[in-house]
Structures are given as structure tokens and as C-alpha cells.
């Protein structure tokens, strides 16, 4: 290599080595988005962020529930106790005064006033103490007919106490009061059918509901679903007589939802949540249409000669595709929105009717496949 050549190459190398284009704003942001979508590291990071967010939401919900519940329960139990003691106290002073039985909704009860003998022991447990019996049961000579030690529900019963002549004084029920964590779980079954797809989708499964607060519940479950979806594609002429007119997918999947249920009034509720879809099996079919020229031989009624009549016959058939769109894929999610009506069926069973809409997200959010799903769920909760 001569010196001229060496010099030239060095100049070119130096020139290119130092050549830079000024950075353009926004490139890093675009790259970051791409990087998170394409690389496993980015996926992991996004999943981690999502998990952290879910943890925060759950923690916030639990804290909210914990803060909310004790206040409510203490208030309710306290008020009811005050009412009993207030009324009992009144009765012991003047047996002729009749106090109306106040129903559950009545909360207009004043707290015990200063100097009231009973106010110093406003605890349920104290009601079992013999020295307080006369405050509870007004009839003085009915001590042998005392009810058994107090239960969460004290309901006055005239049949049990025949000598009882007064109007009932109070009712203390545990309804709406504090429920232990084990009693806040409800389990049930669910079936649903969609209305918007070209063929009704059916799903059935089990569900569990946890009462976080009086009006807020967390619901999860496991639902086996059969989803059929139409691909929004234009017809493709494959040959002179065959046309592919559409594509449909039949998916068998397990749907695992997690929802927050808000029940502002007794019986009506709304719910929002997400669900992860694990596709067990997917069949994809191409809907084909072929036009075949068919010859029909007919007899001429006038001269008896046979004539051929040609007609185009359309045949529709399906052809199974070897590829799939969702099977084996991750990040298949639905956003679930619903409102519902809860109907008490019997003491322990609720029947729920819930119109819902499932909006595809993540890997389900494909422009050419319509996986938007809505219909009605029927749930039974025990």
C-alpha cells in the first residue's frame, strides 16, 4: 500500500469516525417504547411494574377496608347497646312508660347521659351479668324465665315469655354488624352467554368473593369459556371460482378475572376488573365460497327433447387453517365492566344477574379480530 493510499484511507476513516448527526428529541422515548415491547427484559419490567401497581391497589383497598370497618361496626354496635340500656334504664324507673320498638334503620338514639347508671358498662358481655338482668327484662318476677345468655341476636319473643305484658323494648341484631374475615368470603357458580358475537359464546365457572368493606368486594374465579370470533378481513379471490370470504376462530380458554365490586345500595352493584385469558385450544377456519357451473338436464314439454340448463351454484365451506392467532401467546387480557342486580334467594344464597362487557386488551387487541364480548351473567353466591 503506497503512502498516498494510506493517507487517503486514514482521512476517510477519521472523517467517518468523527461524523455524527445531532441528536433529535423524542428518539429515546420512541426507542424505549419499542425496547419494552420487543425485549424480554422490557416485558419483565412492564410485568413487574404491573404487579407493583396491583400490590399498591390491593394494599390501598385493604387499608381502606380496615380503616372503614371498625369505625362502622363500633358505631353500630355501640348505638344499639346505648339504645337497650337507655330503654332499659327508663323502664326500671317507670314501668308504665312504653317504648316503641325501634327498627334497625332507626339510629336516632342519644348516647347515655351523664349520671346514667348503665352507661358505665356499655358492653354486650355485661348483658349476661345477673345484676343487669333487671335492666334488660323489665318484668320483675320473670327472672326464672330469663332467656339464655345473650346471643348476637336478641329478638324479643312474646311466646317465650308469656308473662311479658309490655311492648318489646329493643332489638339487637347482628345484621350489618362486624363479620369476621372467614365470614366475608362467598363462593359461587357462574354461567354467562354473550349476545354480540355472531354465535353465542358460553362460559361457566366458579367464583369467590371477598367482602373488603361494606360496599366493596373483591371478586375472582375461574371460568371455562368458548369464544367464537370473526376476523374482519376483506374477501380474497383465490382462484377463478373460489373466494375466501372470511375467517373465524373458535377458542377454548380459561378466563381468570379479578374485579372490584362496588355496591352502593343494597341489591345493585357495579364492577370493574381485568381478566387473564389462557387459551387451551384454538381452531381457525377460513370461510370459502366457490361457484360451480352446474348442468341440469330437463325435458322440453312440447317436443320431448332434452335440454341442458346451466346454473351457477354457490357452495360455502370451511377450511381449517394450520396457524393460530392466540394459542400459546401470553398477555391476553380483557377489561371487564358490568353492572348487576343481587336478589336474595334464601338466607344463605344470592342470585345475581349481571350484564357485562368484555373489552379485549393486550394480545387480544387485534384490529382484524373482533373479540369484544357482551352479554349477561347469572351467578349464584353461597
Amino acid at each position, binding site marked *: 500500500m503506497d503512502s*498516498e*493510499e494510506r*493517507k*487517503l*484511507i486514514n*482521512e*476517510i*476513516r*477519521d*472523517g*467517518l*469516525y*468523527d*461524523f*455524527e*448527526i*445531532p*441528536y433529535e428529541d423524542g*428518539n*429515546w422515548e*420512541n*426507542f*424505549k417504547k*419499542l*425496547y419494552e415491547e*420487543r*425485549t424480554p*427484559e422490557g416485558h419483565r419490567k412492564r410485568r413487574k411494574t404491573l404487579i407493583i401497581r396491583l400490590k399498591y391497589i390491593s394494599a390501598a383497598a385493604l387499608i381502606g377496608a380496615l380503616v372503614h370497618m371498625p369505625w362502622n361496626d363500633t358505631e353500630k354496635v355501640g348505638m344499639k347497646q346505648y339504645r337497650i340500656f337507655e330503654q332499659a334504664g327508663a323502664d326500671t324507673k317507670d314501668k308504665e312508660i312504653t317504648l316503641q320498638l325501634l327498627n334497625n334503620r332507626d339510629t336516632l338514639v342519644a348516647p347515655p347521659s351523664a349520671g346514667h347508671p348503665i352507661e358505665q358498662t356499655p358492653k354486650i358481655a355485661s348483658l349476661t351479668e345477673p345484676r343487669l338482668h333487671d335492666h334488660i327484662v323489665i318484668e320483675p318476677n320473670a327472672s326464672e324465665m330469663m332467656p339464655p345468655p345473650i346471643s348476637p341476636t336478641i329478638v324479643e319473643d312474646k311466646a317465650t315469655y308469656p308473662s311479658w305484658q309490655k311492648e318489646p323494648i329493643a332489638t339487637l341484631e347482628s345484621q350489618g354488624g362486624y363479620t369476621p374475615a372467614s365470614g366475608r368470603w362467598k363462593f359461587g357458580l357462574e354461567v354467562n352467554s354473550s349476545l354480540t358475537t355472531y354465535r353465542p359464546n358460553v362460559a361457566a365457572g366458579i367464583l369467590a368473593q371477598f367482602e373488603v368493606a361494606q360496599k366493596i368486594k373483591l371478586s375472582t374465579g375461574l371460568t371455562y369459556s368458548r369464544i367464537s370470533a370473526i376476523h374482519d378481513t376483506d374477501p380474497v379471490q383465490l382462484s377463478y371460482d373460489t373466494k375466501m370470504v372470511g375467517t373465524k376462530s373458535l377458542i377454548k380458554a380459561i378466563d381468570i378475572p379479578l374485579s372490584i365490586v362496588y355496591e352502593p345500595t343494597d341489591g345493585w352493584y357495579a364492577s370493574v376488573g381485568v381478566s387473564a385469558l389462557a387459551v387451551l385450544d384454538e381452531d381457525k377456519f377460513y370461510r370459502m365460497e366457490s361457484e360451480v357451473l352446474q348442468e341440469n338436464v330437463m325435458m322440453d314439454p312440447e317436443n320431448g327433447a332434452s335440454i341442458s340448463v346451466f346454473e351457477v351454484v354457490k357452495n360455502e365451506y370451511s377450511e381449517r387453517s394450520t396457524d393460530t392467532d392466540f394459542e400459546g401467546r401470553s398477555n391476553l387480557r380483557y377489561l371487564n365492566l358490568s353492572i348487576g342486580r343481587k336478589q336474595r334467594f334464601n338466607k344463605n344464597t344470592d342470585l345475581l344477574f349481571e350484564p357485562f362487557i368484555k373489552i379485549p386488551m393486550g394480545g387480544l387487541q387485534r384490529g382484524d379480530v373482533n373479540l369484544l364480548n357482551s352479554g349477561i351473567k347469572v351467578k349464584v353466591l353461597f
Partner: protein
Amino acid sequence: MGTDNDLVEVLSKDWQNIGDKLKERIYKHYWGYLMGVALRYVSDRDTAGMVVNDSFMKIFSNLAAFECADMENFNKLLKGWMAKITARTALNEIRKYKNGALRESLTDEHDWRFPVVLQDNLYIENVWDLINNLSPNYRKVFTLYEIEGFNHDEIAELMGITASSSRVYLARAKEKLKMLYRTLMV
């Protein structure tokens, strides 16, 4: 954000473990350089931008595998390593569109906002003029061999040609460059 020297210093100490902030600094610092590398192979800036982003994905995924034997020249070696990745990515991109517009020679659309003065008054525009006047295959072989530092076997594999063809292309490219250089400097 610190200076460029800070970045190289921080990076040279622990390039195997970098966080998001450092990735952002690396991207912003080397983006312009890698765009220059990509533009040696592809002609339009959009494609070059795409090549650079793909290259950065590979760079960030494999940065832990980068080996530096000479820490004094860390930046130079790192740039060379990045440039090699970018060149490979660009050639893969060209292969995807073998008959497309990507094989066109570089045109005047390059951004010459910061011309670099070279020895004997050879400006960066002149360098690009020289490079652009080579036929696509000569240009690729020349830049891969002389600038990126690939050997003929690697170039043969990258371009889908034989190693002897690569040698011939390189020799012809140099001849043509010398001829053009003489014309340019007259």
C-alpha cells in the same frame, strides 16, 4: 445529566450493569455516531433510524458481553463494537429489501450541519462524495473492511459473496477512491 467524559468514565467502570438512566445517556450520546454508521449502508434517514434503534436493542441486550482489553481506549473500542453491530444490522436490513431502494447510493439528503475539517482541507462532504461515488458493493466492502474492521471472511458471510470477491471489490474500491481523490484535490 453529566458530561460525555463522565459517561465514558462511568461506563468504563461497570458497563455490565447499567440502569435505565444510563441507557438513556448512552442512547443519546451514541445515537448520532451510529446514525453516521448506518448511513454508510442505507440511504434514507428513516431506515437509518430504524437500523440504529434495532442496533441499540442488540447493544443493550449484549453489553455485558462486550470485552475491553485496553481500558485507555475504552470509548474507541466501544464505538467500534457498536459500529460493527450497526453495520451488521444495516446489512441485514438491506438483505430484506434486496431489490428495493436501499441499494441506492447516498445522496445529498444527508445532514451536513457540522462539517468536519480534515487534513489537507478534505471536508466531510468530500469524504461522503468519495464514498458515494463508489458502486454499492465497493462501498460496502470498503467501509466494512477499512472503517469497521471486518475481515474478508466476515464480509463474505455478511454480504453473501466469496472472500476472494471481497478482496477484489476492496482493491477496485481503493483504486477508484485514489482516482477520485486526485480529481478532487486538483
